[in-house]
């Protein structure tokens, strides 16, 4: 079976993943989970890129995917360190605890 015919299938999966990540980011309270959700969104996009890359048969997107992974890694590190720093302050990683800044 060729990729082209089932392109939209892959796209559907990717979009579903993205949506799941987004919804998770909205609903979950645990910062770590939040981080994971965002990673999920990024990876959904990666899948999408790869799909298109094969569809167009050029490698650009695949290079891009690597960049995305690197960025994701960087974000993860920074994010985790920020979470740790936050945890030191409020002794909690429940995102709803963090609402002193408002209005």
């Amino acid at each position, binding site marked *: 079976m060729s990729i082209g015919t089932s392109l939209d299938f892959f796209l559907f999966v990717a979009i579903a993943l993205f949506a799941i990540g987004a919804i998770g980011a*909205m*609903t979950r309270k645990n910062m770590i989970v939040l981080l994971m959700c965002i990673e999920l969104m990024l990876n959904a996009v990666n899948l999408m890129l790869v799909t298109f890359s094969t569809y167009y048969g050029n490698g650009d997107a695949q290079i891009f995917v690597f960049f995305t992974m690197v960025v994701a890694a960087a974000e993860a590190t920074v994010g985790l360190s920020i979470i740790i720093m936050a945890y030191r302050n409020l002794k909690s990683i429940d995102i*709803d605890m963090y*609402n002193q800044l408002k*209005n």
Partner: protein
Amino acid sequence: MPQDLTLILLLSFPLLGFAINGIFGKQLPKMVIGSIATVAVFASFLLATSLFSRLDGTTIVNLFNVLDFENLQINASFQIDALSIWMTLIITGVGSLIHLFSIGYMSHDEGFYKFFTYLNLFIFSMLILVLGSNYFVLFFGWEGVGMCSYLLISFHYNDAQKGIANSLAGRKAFIMNRIGDVGLLVALFMIIGQFNTLEYTKIGHLIESNKALTGGAMFFITLSLFIAATGKSAQIPLFSWLPDAMAGPTPVSALIHAATMVTAGIYLTVRSNFLFELAPFTQNIILYTGLATTLFAAFMALRQNDIKKVLAYSTVSQLGLMFVALGFGAYTVALFHVTTHAFFKALLFLGSGSVIHGMHEEQDIRKMGGLAKLMPITHFTFLIGTMAISGIPFLSGFFSKDEIMAQALHHNTFAYIVLVIAVTMTAVYMFRLYFLTFHGEFRGGDQLKSKVHESGPSMTLPLIILAILSIFGGLLNLPGLFFKNSAHWFDHFLSAGTFGLNHIHPVHLDFATSIQLMIFASIVALSVLIWAYLNYVKKGNIAKDDKDLNGWERLSAAKLFVDELYNVLIVNPILAISDFTGKIIDIKLLRNGVYALADGVLNSANISRKWQSGFLSSYLFWMVFGLIIFVAYYILKISVWH
């Protein structure tokens, strides 16, 4: 000396006096101030006589150009003709006498120099008014005399008890005059619209050249001119300021509110005769206004107890008389009465001034009586004035009134009857005044009686001169039945020398009618004299107190409640509206409305800031929501396009 130079000097003398007294008045001694002012006016009088002697036709002296637009030129130019010069003679002549009188009268006043400064300024403005050769200059003087009258009425503003009342009287006069001025303003606008000029002669020639323009335009122009006249000359409905104006010093009442300023309205009408001739309807309005005024004013005078108030109302009534003449188109007659009235009314006011001076500022005739012995000269002259105004035969008033009656009899019997009633009343209240003041017992208490004294020469001299004038003033315009050749001299002089009047002549009755007329008038006057003598001297009736007045007397004493009427109808509503607009509309509605708007916008912050809930998840939700909005926008766009 050429005419224009004479004219300039004539104008500049009072101005000079005004300047000198105004600037250096404080330092100068009273005698000097007084004489400067008097001499200034008298000098103008002399110059006026010289102009009078050399008078021929109409001469226009153009001083300078005020404004110069392509379709409208306004010059400060002056006109020398019979009318203006005659008025000038009255103003400066009577004026200088009153100045002289004031030197004595005001001698104890601390505002002495100010008084003469204002007085000279008034004379100057009045001269501008009558000498101007166009309505603009006239308007200058018109407003100027109004201002001076304000200043002089409220002259004693820091009087202990009457101070505020005086200044309020001044304000009333100024405002009522202003109402008239609006009429004049409107008239001027319409004249400019009609003729594109304000020069009397130009307008006259334009009218002569095309008789076509009549009807509407002329009616409105003349009507608004007449409104202006009612303001200055205290006619119904704008007359109620004149009695209050008596708050001013008595010489002011004599000069401004009897002899000169109040006759400005008559002057204006005579000056604009060519306009009025084209608006018969306005003339009727004038006639009936005049009749009403003369009748009601005379009625109000019947039961006044303030010596000056009586004279004030009689002035209003006499002015009404003049307007009746104007209503008949008998301009020269009106002016003749202006002249004689200037004489005897000035005389009467100065006489009353002398009385008040002698009585130490007492004005209530109920406190007077028997002054004949105490101040003989004043008494004698006052008697002459009274007789003159009441139309005792062969005094000036007799002739001038008789002329007016003649016009009335010829044109309109109803008017004649009304006039007879009014004239009778005049005689009644004047003799009442005279007898109550000078005859009977002195009612002012002994310590006052001891202080009463005849006034000094500077006051009595003018009285005497004016008395003489009041006696012989009638000779100016004798009716036809005496000396045929010199009869109606004034009439001819004026109509010959004044633009427009030369083809308007008052009717002259035939011998029989006029003789009957005169006899009737004399009988009326004399019988009133006798009645009054019997009533007030023999029976010794004195003026009653306000409480035991009967119906009509109370009505007369209360001046027909005109002031109250005006307050209810005009003043109070305006004040109420002012309150309403100021407090409700302006503050509550507009200003607070703006505040409310601003607050509304700014306070919506309290709602909008709630959006920033502080929960990360809500932020993320709203971001996604935003995305959804974007997508919705996309769908919308697409559907719009297809």
